[in-house]
């Protein structure tokens, strides 16, 4: 009798923690999900200002400006559409023109994309899967790297 009631209490505690975990996960997930767009998807779907998203593509050749006061502006392209990115942080070391890049941030009313993070990949043989797919869809890239 005693053992059973104790087991019941443990199960009840487990239930409470499980419910809390699931609830918390679902609520937190809603705010923390970041969707990935390619530049042409942005052109088609117009994500709203201030919405946190990721954009991936190639850094357009010759588009990188490095203002003297710091930061960098550049254009991300997938061959079909382009997006101007404003970034006031420090570019990652592997950032290069013509290479794949993923930027996270939000659009600002001027129509530019203000990035809070810029990710370039560690390994230059490595293309971020989303970028590879987006580029393949727009026909810019015919790499063999299957997913």
């Amino acid at each position, binding site marked *: 009798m*005693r*053992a059973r009631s*104790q087991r019941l*209490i*443990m199960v009840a*505690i*487990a239930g409470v*923690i*499980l419910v*809390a*975990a699931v609830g*918390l*996960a679902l*609520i*937190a*997930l809603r*705010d*923390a*999900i*970041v*969707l*990935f*767009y390619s530049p042409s998807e942005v052109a088609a779907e117009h994500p709203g200002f201030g919405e*946190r998203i*990721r954009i*991936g593509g190639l850094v357009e050749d010759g588009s990188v400006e*490095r*203002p*003297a*006061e*710091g*930061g960098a502006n550049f254009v991300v392209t997938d061959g079909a559409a382009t997006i101007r990115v404003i970034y*006031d*942080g*420090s*570019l990652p*070391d*592997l950032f290069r023109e013509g290479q794949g890049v*993923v930027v996270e941030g939000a659009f600002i009313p001027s129509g530019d994309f203000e990035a809070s993070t810029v*990710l370039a*990949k*560690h*390994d*230059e*043989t*490595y*293309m*971020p*899967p*989303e970028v590879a*797919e*987006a580029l393949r869809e727009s026909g810019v890239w015919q790499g063999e*790297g*299957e*997913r």
Partner: protein
Amino acid sequence: MIAETGRFLVALAFALSILQLLSGWRAASIGSAPAMRIAARSAYGALAAAVIAFGLLIILFLQSDFSVAYVAGHSHVDKPLFYKIAAAWGGHEGSMLLWCVMLVGVGAALARFALRQDEQLKNRAVSIQGGLQILFLGFLAFASNPFDRLLDVPLQGADLNPILQDPALAIHPPTLYIGYVGLSAAFSLAVAGLIEGRGGRAIAAALRPWSLFAWTALTAGIALGAWWAYYELGWGGWWFWDPVENASFMPWLVAAALIHSAIATEKSGNFAGWTAFLAIMAFTMSTMGAFLVRSGVLTSVHAFALDPERGLWILGIMTILAGGGLTLFAFRSGRLGHGDGFALTSREAFIGVNNLLLAAVAGTVLFGTLYPLVMTAFGVSGVSVGAAYFNATATPFLAALLILLPIAPFLPWKKDGFSRRLALRSTLWILPGVLAGLWAFLIEASPVAIAAAAFAGWTLAGVATDLWHHRVLQGAAARFSLTGRVLAHAGVVAVALGAVADSTGRPETVRALAEGEQIEIPGFTLTLDGVRRADGPNYLADEARIVVENGRVSELLPQRRYYAAADTTTREVAIRSGLGGDLYVSLGEPRARDSGEIAYEVRVTFNPMVWLLGLGAIMIVLGGTSASIGRALSRRQKERVS
């Protein structure tokens, strides 16, 4: 010739593992002594073969033999000797070989040291471990062999990814792998125990020392990785909730739950099924860690390279581990037996809640990590889950864990233990909590930090009382165990505090500076004094001299390096550590101003009290080590008695 011999040794280790599986199984089934000796000798032989193969791989690196694809892909003749050796495990194939060396090492250790009093269970475990060896050595031999050759020998190697050329990262993978692979012993023992129909207590007693050791190594490995990320990636952070980091954090959580629940199971037989389940899950999670790192299915800041074939292999291995292990568990867990039962305020109950909380964190981290993958399966690609999710889900449970932590050591096993004395004692802990909170308030910390300081004050007071209250314990074994427990618990608190302190730091300041110009951040003035060349053996570098003033003057020398062979630029940050925190400076790209002046991008952050993280990690590792020693001593005592 060296490469081919290495390849053959891998093949031999594979073949010997098959013999280990078969003869170990036979020894356990019919109790044949020769079969047992053959199983043990197979394990020793496989270990010797794997170790020699690894040694040969290192020799190939020292020779810079670029007819070996793995060497050509990860080395360069001009690379410093230390990194030539470290490159042997710096890439996928080599690290897999290291994984296998450790796996057969565990097999040999099981055959030699485990369970002298229960040979049947030991032989079964050796046999199961042989099965694990077959899976991973098969993967190594057939899908990622480090001894693969290039017929068209390149003139020069491609060099190891420069960010991996770093002392911390050279020892990070081996340490982490000791942890991951050490959990295979817990897996094999749990599966063997289920097959043999042993009771929960026997299984828990058998797997406890292995789990504790593995968990300690895992802690050290994760800490080294975080440290490396902190000063080498140059982003100023040490934990990014990146899939690869989560991949090592999940087995850590599961192993942490395991080492607690196994104590309860060994003492009173409670949680027998749960302990076996955790033992199976811990190693499965470790393998998933490898899967996430190597397959590239998830976008990660650390991802190596994307290779679907290898991903499939590891997915297959994982399916066998989790599927086989859990199916067996479902059929056999009934035989584990019921425990003695326990009261609601007994130590078991608190360990149970500890386990539920750790499992909740592991579950939410797993969910967040795999969510993008699940969405891809539903045709929605490119979803990623930000750090905000992990912070929001993990923090409440970890906080609850820390609040309950100090009470448990004062509770008795099985019986109700909540006395007036304990109530009084824990009320007293509130005082340091309030004082810590007040101090945080006075230095104008954020509300989160104030709360964290208050909780930490409470928990630390409790941990200190634990040490004081149990100081009368007799015998070296008990003292080592107590020290281990207190150190590890206090270490966890230190890490939590460090994490909170770090999260209260200000964002980075980035500015382009020409010579003589300054950046000011609160408390510090930094002046760029000049930039000079500081080339190394396999890189070209600019080194900035930055003069820091905050009452006293010091200088920092961040570098920006260009590794020609890998065509990669890296930054070497300069850090000035102090009690208040780290001043963290990195040097970015140069840019020309209209005036023709060259300005260098300089990034400055102040990370408050980062040393707490390092201190906490060291305390946890020392605690785990101390508890392992205590455990070994008490076992020796028991053996002497019997």
